[in-house]
């Protein structure tokens, strides 16, 4: 009964941590719009957490620049399980107008398992709330999957491993390319 209570609470109290991975600030403004009296995401239990350690949902905006990539991965790995990763806007999904730029390392799904994509440039507040509502459901599912029926803890999800493998590689890429550029000049 206690576990059921926890699983039910999981989908009623999602705390957000917002990471700006080189966003143009358009999506960030829309997050604020979602919290205003007109849309009021707090009625669903949403709260902006100040620290990644207290978050359940990570909301990533921006095309994931090379500078921000290691920081984004570090911040995501600090979020305790179960966690849900949501990308907001077209940038973290595809790169949007920044696609192909020398400074863009995205899309985010190359590095971590993204659970929900909210498309749009910038997405409407209704779309953001819809995406976050889906994320709430996934959060409860992940929690239920963490503990199997016999009460034993299921093995950790592979997200952690992906981060551990990719983060040093991504950091290593930067100096190599910088050296190449220097050589060309």
């Amino acid at each position: 009964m206690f576990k059921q209570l926890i699983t039910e609470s999981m989908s009623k109290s999602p705390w957000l941590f917002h990471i700006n991975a080189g966003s143009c600030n358009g999506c960030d403004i829309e997050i604020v719009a979602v919290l205003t009296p007109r849309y009021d995401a707090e009625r669903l239990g949403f709260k902006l957490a100040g620290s990644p350690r207290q978050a359940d949902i990570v909301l990533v905006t921006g095309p994931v620049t090379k500078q921000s990539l290691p920081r984004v991965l570090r911040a995501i790995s600090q979020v305790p399980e179960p966690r849900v990763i949501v990308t907001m806007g077209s940038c973290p999904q595809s790169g949007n107008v920044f696609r192909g730029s020398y400074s863009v390392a995205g899309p985010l799904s190359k590095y971590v398992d993204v659970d929900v994509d909210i498309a749009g440039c910038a997405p409407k507040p209704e779309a953001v709330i819809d995406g976050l509502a889906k994320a709430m459901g996934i959060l409860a599912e992940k929690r239920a999957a963490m503990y199997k029926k016999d009460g034993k803890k299921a093995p950790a999800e592979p997200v952690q491993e992906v981060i551990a493998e990719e983060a040093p590689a991504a950091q290593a890429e930067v100096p190599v390319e910088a050296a190449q550029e220097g050589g060309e000049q």
Partner: protein
Amino acid sequence: MTIITDALTYLAYILIFPGFLFCFLSGMLLCGIDRKLVARMQKRVGPPVLQPFYDFFKLLGKETIVPAAANKTVFLMAPLVGLAAQVVLQLFIPVFSFHAFRGVADVIVVLYLLLIPALSVILGAASSGSPYAGVGLSREMVTVLAVELPLVLVLLAVAKTVGNALGTGLCFSLTDIVRCQMENGSLITRLSMIPAAVAMLLIIPGETGSHPFDAAEAETEICEGMLAEYSGAPLAVYKLSHAVKLLTMTTLFTALFLGGIGGGVQQLVSGLAPSLAGGIAIVLEIIILFLLSVVLVAVTVSFTHAVTARLRIEQLFKFYWTVVTGLAAISVVLAWYGL
């Protein structure tokens, strides 16, 4: 035989009525009502009233991360010590005529116990090894220091006034303070006590760390400050401790200034059969206490949260040591002249 019944009674006190269960339920409910009220004041729908319960159980189900730089024992024990002290404090504050531990502790002990939850948060933050927590804990220390002086003066004013009425000089016993009010009327009805009551109302948001006195837990600038590294169950305990603190401060205000309501309840039930009267009086008193707590939280915490912005730490310190201390000092002087 009496030892067993005594032990069972005290166990019930600690675990059920003014202890853990009561603190958990009513503290969380108060917190939920506070969030709903703030939302309504900002023309939002707001979270459900039961939201703090959801938050609490969700946090219990999350992974608990202990940072590599942290001292594990202190990091994990500090929240528990804080919560335990908070509940012990609630045991010592009388609910009108009902007093779980009569004559054991007085106002001075309450003053000490009020410090322990704040100190436990500071200890936990210091052991977490996070620079954000470091900034937060230095601000929390200043907040504690700022709030303590007016609080001591308020308690002194109350003790002197009650002491005058009972003819004992200074009266620090909470039981006597409430009993005196039940016989002579609430202290808030005395003109000389109104500045102290206002000061106490201003102390409540400072003590609970709510807007605009939440420089120590500023989530937008220092990542929740002292709680920056906490996740999962320890964070849930801190949230619970904070909710209980809301209840404790409003209960303390009720005991210090509105104790006379207990006399009214006693008069109301005096017509009933004596076997029934005691039980009905306690139930009535608990309901009145909770309603008063809701009103006090609405006035001091929710309203100030909705209409003010966060103060800087030195503004907070200046406010408490000038305005609030001044108000409390007026009451102390008036009480000393026997008004």
